[in-house]
Every structure is written in C-alpha cells, then in structure tokens.
C-alpha cells in the first residue's frame, strides 16, 4: 500500500521555521516523510500524510514543531465521547 493519505486538510501540525536549527531529527523520526530539509531548514512537504503521532514535535529540541498528538482509533474516540477522556481505553481494533 503506497498511498497512505487519509483525510486531507485536517492535520494539526505546525512548524515555526524561525526556531528551526536544521538538526533534521524530525525528518528522521517521521514515519510518513511529512517533513523534508530545504536550505538547511525543515519544511512541511506532505501535510496530508501526517497522522499526528507527535514524534517530530516531541523530538524537536527547539520546540519549532507543534501537533496535537492522539490515537487515530475510532473505538478509542467513541469511548472518549461516552466515557470521557480518562476512562477511555483502547483495546477494540487491535490498536494496542
């Protein structure tokens, strides 16, 4: 399965280019090659491929990247709707 683009235009990923120091850690940790290096700085290249795992933001030593990380799992989201965020538990669809 080559094309792993999900819904377009929903990702919460942000990049503050002025803070980037060009360490390129974000390009190493992103599992969907969303970020690439351009002229010594990271840029968002394939925003719609972002699954909001939060790896880039967590590993950015400059806090240049931001994302609302979460679990892309309908069974989990359903539980947060009905039971609230704290009681939610994945399990359902093999998500963990």
């Amino acid at each position, binding site marked *: 399965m080559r094309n792993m683009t999900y819904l377009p235009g929903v990702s919460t990923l942000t990049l503050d280019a002025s803070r980037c120091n060009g360490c390129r850690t974000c390009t190493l940790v992103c599992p969907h090659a969303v970020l690439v290096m351009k002229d010594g700085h990271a840029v968002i290249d394939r925003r719609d491929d972002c699954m909001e795992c939060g790896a880039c933001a967590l*590993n950015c030593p400059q806090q240049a990247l931001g994302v609302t990380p979460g679990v892309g799992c309908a069974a989990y989201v359903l539980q947060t709707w009905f039971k609230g965020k704290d009681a939610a538990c994945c399990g359902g669809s093999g998500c963990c």
Partner: protein
Amino acid sequence: MKNSHNAPMSGDRLPLSPDIEDTRPHLPFLSAPGILPELPRQRTDACCGIPSSILTTPPIASRNAPYRHCHQGNVPSPVGPIPRLGTRLTPRDYWGGLKVRLGMGRNRYAMPAGLYAVGRPDPRSPVLVTANYKLTVDALRKELHGHDAWILVLDTRGINVWCAAGKGTFAAKELVHRLKASRLEQVVTHRRLVLPQLSASGVAGHLVKQQSGFRVIWGPIRARDLPAFLSRPKEAPPDMRRMSFTLKERLTLVPVEISAAFRPAVWILGMAMLMALLLGMAGPAPFMTVLHTMLLGGAATVVGLISGAVLTPILLPWIPGNAFALKGGFLGLGAAFISQLAFYPAMDVETSIALTMMTIATSSFLAMNFTGATPFASPSGVEKEMRWAIPAQALVVTIGLIGWLQAVWGG
C-alpha cells in the same frame, strides 16, 4: 497479587526499602522481584496493559514460564551474568504468539524488563531498546540470529512499541530508569542506544541524552531491517524509515479484527434476534416464516461483519473514498448485492432493502473501527469522519432494523 513483590520467595533476595537505590546486578530471569520495588508512574494507568503488581512477580520462575525456554545461558559482564536469549523461534513461541494476537493471556506473556543478550556481545556491541510485548521481543530476537548485541527490554506493560509510545509507557522516563537499573553504563563502553523509530512518539531523544548521557540513534521501523542497519548503525536509510501497510501486514490484522468484533456482534445480534422472535410470535405470520426472516437478518449482519472486518482490511487500497466509514459502506453495499443475488432466497423489495441497510451499517462501522489498526489514520481525521459517520450509521441501521422487524412481523 497486590503485595507479591514484598513477599520473599525461595531463592530470592529480600527487597530493599523503596528509598534505597538498588545497585545489585539485575538478572531478570533469576530474580525479577525485589530489584526495584516501584515502577515509574506512567501517564496512563487506567487500562491497556498490566497493573505493575503483576509484572513484579517473575513469570520466568513459574512452572509454565513463557520465556524460560528461550533463556540460553548467560553472558558475563562487569555487573554480573546477563541472560542470553535464543534467536530461533520454537513452535511454542508461535503458539504463544497466536494466543497474544487473539488477546489470550497477553499479561502472562509480558517479558520481565531488563538487560538481555543475544549472541556473544562485548562492551562495544550495540544496545537495542525494545518493548516487553511477546511478539515484539520474538520479532527482535529472531532477526538478530548470528548477531551479537545487548537488548534493553523496557516495561511497557506487555504492549508493543508503537502503542506503548502513544500511551506514554515507552518514554524517556522509563528508558532512563531502566538504564540505571540495569547499570548499562558499566556493561558497555560506548554511549549509544538504538531505538525503534516508532518509539519516537513517546521518547524525546534529546532528553535521554540530557538525563543519561546516552545518545539515541533512531533505528529502522521494522525488526527485519535490523541486520542491514547494524552493518552501518549510523542512520537508517529512507526506506527503513517509511511506514508500510502491505497486504501481508493487513492480513495478519484480520483475525484480530474478527476477535475484537465477535463478542459485541454476538451480543447485539442476540438482542435483535430476541426482539424479532418476540415480535414474530405476537404477529400473524406462521412460525417458520418468522424464523426464515429472522435468519435472513442474521445473515445480513454476518455479511456486514465479513465485509467490514475481513474484506475492508484486505481490499483497503482499492476501495474508493478516503474515509473508512465510506469505504466500509461501499463494500457493504457490494457484499449485500452479491450475497442476495447468489445466496439468499427470493424476497420482496422492502426486505431486500432493509437487509442491505443492515449490512451497510455493520460493514461501515467495523471498517471505521479498523482506523485504530492502521499506521496512517490521524486522530483529527478519525474524529472528523466519525462526526458524520456515526449519525449516518445509526440512521441506516435503524431504518434497516425497522424494515426487517416489520418483515418478521408481517411474514
């Protein structure tokens, strides 16, 4: 179970009081309890995984210990002997793997956290960090056949790398804690750790360096790329860093999807059948006709289940649409159409439409639930999709159910 780690067992050392740092050799196979009485507080204690009290008892020491058979001697080190793991999987491993995949005894199969060896590692050998899920540890040691390496197993409550990272158990805090507990800095002369790339959503590499002096190197996503990676362990090439979702990977998820859907499906179907039976008995139609229509409803639900939990994962890239609920709906429509043409007896149009709607709603809902098993669905996307999909599914299934119940009543 609650106080088991405080109770001295035969052959075990007495546990230290919690405020004294334990610097004794960490030999998970030989003496899992009493090493470090408390586990670090995790972000999520609520569910998903094992209460820490269970993990502090030594699975390896019990009679049916699931890991004892892969313990192959010890490797000497400055902090004492380190247990060596076999790199050939046995039928027993495959049987255990099948069981944890189906959610049976996953807790029992959690590997005790700590330092292990494969081959004959020396102080310059690489250190690979991993989760203590049965299938994770097995995939790792299998790929390391013929290699010499240290394996640092974190306590992720028996959960795989990706999910543990998302849940905050595969995190810098646990890693630093486990580094100190295993006294790795005395075992190896270098200061590098190879982490699976998918743990990056839980581990901040620069914090690990700050807190322990060890530098994090992001290894490949898949364990099978490790042999190639270890020949030049500087940086994983782009193809090792990209997520895949091949047909084979999707196929392994099908049994998981079925087992997850099975119990709720039986419940809901059972309730619907009971309702239909009561209604049918009260109605004017003869019993055999009622039974016949009831079975058609059951069949329509099962077709939806197959479409959503089996066919959707397999055919995923080729089904039109972006949203999973839509993909499942399309496939449900197709599956209902084919099954009614090929297998069902002739019926009137109203019943046919009602059954089709039941199939579509079931398939759409299960396909939507498959988002959690894919490596690319984002939470923002899932939530956006669910905002329209859940009401739509509810509407479709309600109309379908009413139509079906009406057919049961009227015969």
